[in-house]
């Protein structure tokens, strides 16, 4: 029984559909959401989301901060910026990473570090996309927040 997944930015609805499993891989650890998850509300950092739906290729989405609202039957991500991995321009992401590195060498600013981190998240997303990444089913004890399975 899949849940509804929505990823919304101020400009557009990036994704609206059904999913069986969502994994967040961020700097603060991993978080896996299965249907029937207990209500959870969390702040996100610059993260990668992996969305899996039965019978379909999984999606890799970059999420630049924001919030995730998890209910048993619905997951909503509100973020200032999100991109499907397929939409990412690899050349631009590489250039952005280079620019940010040069900037950090010159002067370590929070702005440049943020830019570098976002570029790296994008590049990681592309890597996953290229490899046809299969997310591992998380299990309690793996870190992050334990997965609560409802009956059924």
């Amino acid at each position: 029984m899949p849940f509804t997944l929505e990823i919304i930015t101020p400009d557009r609805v990036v994704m609206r559909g059904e999913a069986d499993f969502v994994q967040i891989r961020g700097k603060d650890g991993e978080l896996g959401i299965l249907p029937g998850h207990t209500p959870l509300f969390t702040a996100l950092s610059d993260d990668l989301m992996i969305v899996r739906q039965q019978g379909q290729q999984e999606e890799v989405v970059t999420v630049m901060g924001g919030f995730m609202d998890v209910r048993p039957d619905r997951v909503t991500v509100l973020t200032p910026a999100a991109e499907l991995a397929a939409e990412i321009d690899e050349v631009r992401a590489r250039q952005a990473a280079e620019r940010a590195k040069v900037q950090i060498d010159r002067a370590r600013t929070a702005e440049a570090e943020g830019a570098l981190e976002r570029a790296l998240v994008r590049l990681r997303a592309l890597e996953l996309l290229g490899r046809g990444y299969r997310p591992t089913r998380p299990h309690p004890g793996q870190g992050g927040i334990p997965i609560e399975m409802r009956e059924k």
Partner: protein
Amino acid sequence: MPGNTKEIRRRIKSFQSTQKITKAMEMVAAAKVRRAQERVQASRPYSDKLREVFAEVSANLPAGEVRHPLLVPPVAARHTLLLVITSDKGLCGGYNANIIRAAVNRSQEIKAEGRDVSLFVVGNKGIAFFRRSAFAVVQTLSGVPTPPGFPQAEVIVDEATDLYLRGEVDRVELLYTRFQSLARYEPTAMDLLPATLPDGELRGQARTPYLFEPPAEELMGELIPAYLKTAVYQALLDASASQLAAQMMAMGAASKNAGEMIAQLTLVYNKARQASITQEILEVVGGAEALQG
């Protein structure tokens, strides 16, 4: 009078080329205003959902007062930051004059309450006006694209929040032009800080018990800025749509006026031409009669 007709012809030409420009500007503004309206629409799912989760989180907060600096000012500075949104470019009728007048009036009201006022001005038109005035301009932003993007709203909110948290101001108000329809757009005020929790009466009566990561009180510190950014983003979009609508109206009126001037001048030109032809005929006839006589 050949000199006179030539002069009139030149003026007609000049009006015609002006009309071409104003017509083009009118059409461009019309196309852009439609896109701006679409942007406003596209931002709704995000703001609606954010309002919903905001209410949900605040319902999960313990009953009673929540002491977050964004909700209760850290310092009673008796100083208001007035955030005014104007445009970078003109040729949009009374759009900028109206919002600037509203800002001046609001500043005087605030001063009458015994509070100080500083301005945060967005848009070159407002910046140019307030720099020449006696008002204290503490922050400016120009170069907001058409249509505005979310990053500009983030910059504005971050800087305003910074001034507030540093205790320089204890209140932040936003003044922008709200877009209602192509013919209706009005200067509108909105309180930004200190923020108020939505559904205050629902506090402590959560419908769904939530897990919070980080704890709900801490989440407020992230949710409130996100909420403000969305409010400012929508204000920027509204202001941009209003400015384009005002430009469309102004250029439409200018094209119409140019048309009237062209019609009038054409009439004068035709009369002058007629008069000079009649004059010539009279001269020819007069000359012929003189020869016969």
